[in-house]
């Protein structure tokens, strides 16, 4: 089956999910992002690639970091950026998703950045828009958050250079996490030999092994000797019914403390997609400690989003 994200010539038309994307496409994004890192250190932090283009940030779900970094990325590419907080707009008046998109397309949108609580929302928009319009999924339900997955592998590559020989542990609420899914696909596509997920049975999706990861319920076993620890946010707002005894109970077993981090390699890095629940999935002394690369992740995220937008706009 044809990948709906790719053009006839195999180049990226939309970025909807990392699943099924060729390794070369991921590497092209990472290499391009590295060049944009240099741009952000100059006196003028802008390049003219998207001059005259309009990027619509379509957020049906609240977000600060992702929306802001997409906005900065688009502005550094010289695009005009329009932010729509739909949660507080037309959809509450009954307009359908595709009617909203049609109206914005009539305002000459060139690119949509979409965040939605329903899995598949960005796919739906991508299959609906005109051929010259590009769609980036900025998080759809539990499904995918591809630019987060890309910035995570960018971060890992920055600190660890190569994916061959790496052990990466993803800890916590994998069940509700689109970040975890996108990261797992990115890591396996880039040839990471050892990807582990660690969490209680109730917060790991059934069949997660089929993604090419090993499953652990014990932190001591899961963290042993790993190079990268990715802690996930406990997504209370997505939980229906009791999946956990309590947040305190979760922290005791799965919260990343200095003692648990000591099980990983001495030079292991700690990542978190944000926003953090301090004292639930991660201890403050780890989040603010010397092994934490949580804030560099945010900075890298701008360059990665610039890379994705400029690659899409040029295809």
């Amino acid at each position: 089956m044809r990948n709906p994200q790719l053009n006839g010539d195999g180049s990226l038309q939309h970025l909807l999910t990392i699943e099924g994307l060729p390794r070369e496409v991921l590497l092209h994004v990472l290499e391009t992002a590295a060049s944009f890192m240099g741009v952000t250190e100059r006196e003028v932090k802008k390049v003219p690639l998207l001059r005259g283009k309009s990027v619509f940030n379509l957020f049906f779900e609240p977000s600060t970091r992702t929306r802001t970094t997409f906005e900065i990325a688009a502005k550094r590419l010289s695009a005009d950026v329009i932010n729509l907080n739909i949660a507080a707009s037309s959809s509450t008046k009954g307009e359908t998703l595709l009617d909203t998109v049609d109206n914005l397309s009539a305002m000459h949108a060139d690119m949509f950045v979409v965040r939605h609580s329903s899995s598949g929302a960005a796919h739906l928009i991508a299959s609906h828009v005109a051929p010259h319009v590009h769609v980036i999924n900025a998080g759809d339900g539990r499904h995918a958050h591809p630019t987060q997955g890309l910035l995570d592998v960018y971060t890992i590559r920055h600190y660890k250079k190569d994916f061959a020989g790496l052990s990466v542990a993803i800890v916590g609420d994998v069940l509700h996490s689109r970040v975890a899914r996108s990261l797992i696909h990115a890591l396996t596509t880039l040839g990471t030999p050892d990807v582990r997920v660690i969490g209680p049975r109730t917060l790991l999706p059934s069949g997660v092994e089929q993604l090419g990861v090993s499953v652990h319920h014990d932190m001591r076993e899961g963290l042993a000797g790993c190079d990268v620890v990715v802690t996930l946010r406990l997504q209370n707002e997505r939980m229906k019914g009791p999946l956990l005894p309590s947040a305190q109970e979760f922290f005791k077993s799965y919260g990343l403390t200095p003692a648990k981090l000591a099980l990983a390699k001495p030079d292991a890095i700690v990542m978190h997609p944000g926003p953090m629940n301090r004292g639930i999935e991660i201890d403050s002394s780890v989040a603010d400690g010397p092994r934490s690369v949580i804030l560099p992740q945010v900075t890298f995220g701008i360059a990665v989003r610039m890379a994705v937008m400029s690659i899409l706009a040029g295809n």
Partner: protein
Amino acid sequence: MKLPDAEALCRELAGKLRAGVTDSTGLVGIRTGGAWLAERLHRELGLATPLGTLDISFYRDDFASVGLHRQVKPSQVPFDVNDRHIVVVDDVLYTGRTVRAAMNELFDYGRPGKIELAALVDRGERQLPIAAQYVGAALSVPAGKLLRLERDERGHFTLRLSDAKSAA
């Protein structure tokens, strides 16, 4: 057609450039051929200011039709460009569009005092009002052909002519 010896042209260009540069001159090569050439000139002239390299992919005027280059590398300008004498170096000067893109990029680092241009070969056919102050040789090349510098593993330069379609 017979192409001139790139090594001889490089010596010629270095000789001409020697009279125009000082220790504070910033040499900036345009990736890929111009960067190799600038590296060589920088070493032969013994310039004190560190060498700069530009990848003009983010400034190309044909982005809308050809998209982003497959292999973008970071630009590096390891000196303050403000008020500085800068010599932009490229292997082949042709339409002038690459040089325009390079100048636009340089201005995003600051306001240079003076920009000059050095090219190994000037093949004419300019589409913009741009001229080189230092040229190895002028050469007439049929339209539709791509002329570029190549460097082998020993660092030896040769000029190569190919059909534009097969080039990157």
